[in-house]
């Protein structure tokens, strides 16, 4: 038989027996979440163009379970902020983040979203972590699609290992409170 070239996601640690497989619920849920992250692209400049390449056939982010790009924050798991965010746009970004339901993750793609980049000026927000918490930063100006895919894979690792209790923990509530998010 011809060797199958399809890469399947490995099963988590557990006990295999005749007709059963036992593992921790955390790991099953983490596996499911990590491989079906629905992205919400918040693209404001050239990093957004790189993201379009990332979603297209050549790089194909769908291979990692992010087939369905959600343009409603209510159905998205992963907010990708790509590009310069001006101070005037900061409340809108924040509102988009607030509309996402838990669990939610954020990737800051590119120098501008991560730190303001070259725009060290009165009108530009110096990194989106001034208004919302960020899970993964992707460097580059703009980053290549490989880097964006790498950022998504880093996030998948976070999602896989995230405890089901994290979103109810005191630390997490404290983090949100530090951003004045309910």
């Amino acid at each position, binding site marked *: 038989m011809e060797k199958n070239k399809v890469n399947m996601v490995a099963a988590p640690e557990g006990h295999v027996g005749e007709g059963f497989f036992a593992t921790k619920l955390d790991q099953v849920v983490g596996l499911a979440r990590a491989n079906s992250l629905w992205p919400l692209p918040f693209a404001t400049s050239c990093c957004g163009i790189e993201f379009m390449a990332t979603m297209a056939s050549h790089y194909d982010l769908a291979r990692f379970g992010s087939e369905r790009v959600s343009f409603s924050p209510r159905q998205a798991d992963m907010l990708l902020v790509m590009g310069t965010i*001006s*101070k*005037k746009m900061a409340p809108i970004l924040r509102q988009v983040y607030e509309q996402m339901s838990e669990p939610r993750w954020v990737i800051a793609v590119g120098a501008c979203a991560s*730190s303001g980049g070259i725009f*060290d000026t*009165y*009108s530009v927000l*110096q*990194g989106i972590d001034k208004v919302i918490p960020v899970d993964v930063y992707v460097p580059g100006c703009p980053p290549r699609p490989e880097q964006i895919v790498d950022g998504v894979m880093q996030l998948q690792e976070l999602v896989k290992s995230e405890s089901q209790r994290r979103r109810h923990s005191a630390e997490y509530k404290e983090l949100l409170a530090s951003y004045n998010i309910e």
Partner: protein
Amino acid sequence: MALESVDIQNKLQETFGDHVKYFRTEYDMFVLEADVDVVYNVIKFLKEEPSLNFSFLTDLCGVHYPDSNLNEQFCVVYHLHNWYENKRIRVKTFLNGTNPEVKSIVSLFNCANWMERETFDFYGINFDGHPNLVRILNMDEMTSFPMRKEFPMEDSGRTDKDDRFFGRTINNATI
């Protein structure tokens, strides 16, 4: 017959006398300066006088000259265009440094609405009679006027950018 700069100058001087001055051609464009209290009427005249017919406002913007006399620290520049003769003209007016104020020309050109808002946003120039003089590009909470020369290039109180990583310290290697 083409519209000559000399004819424009004569007509303006007949009507406004000493309030219009420093006629010259700069960068292939006819320029004049008008006193702040007549500039509205100068533009109205340029637009409505049939032989001049400058019926299009190309641009309106501000300039800051902090080192000039107190009464000439701000400048508002109007670019007008006569489509029939393809003749352009630039009208400048100088304003007081502490209380820059000039009459709005929105009643003459509707397109001046957003241009005057932008000029207010960046220079704090007050356009008297403007229907909605609020910030247009910058965030509403902003209290300063960023294109004024005294506005600092960088925020001095910031903590997020380490000078060592931006080549701003004298010797980066030893720190």
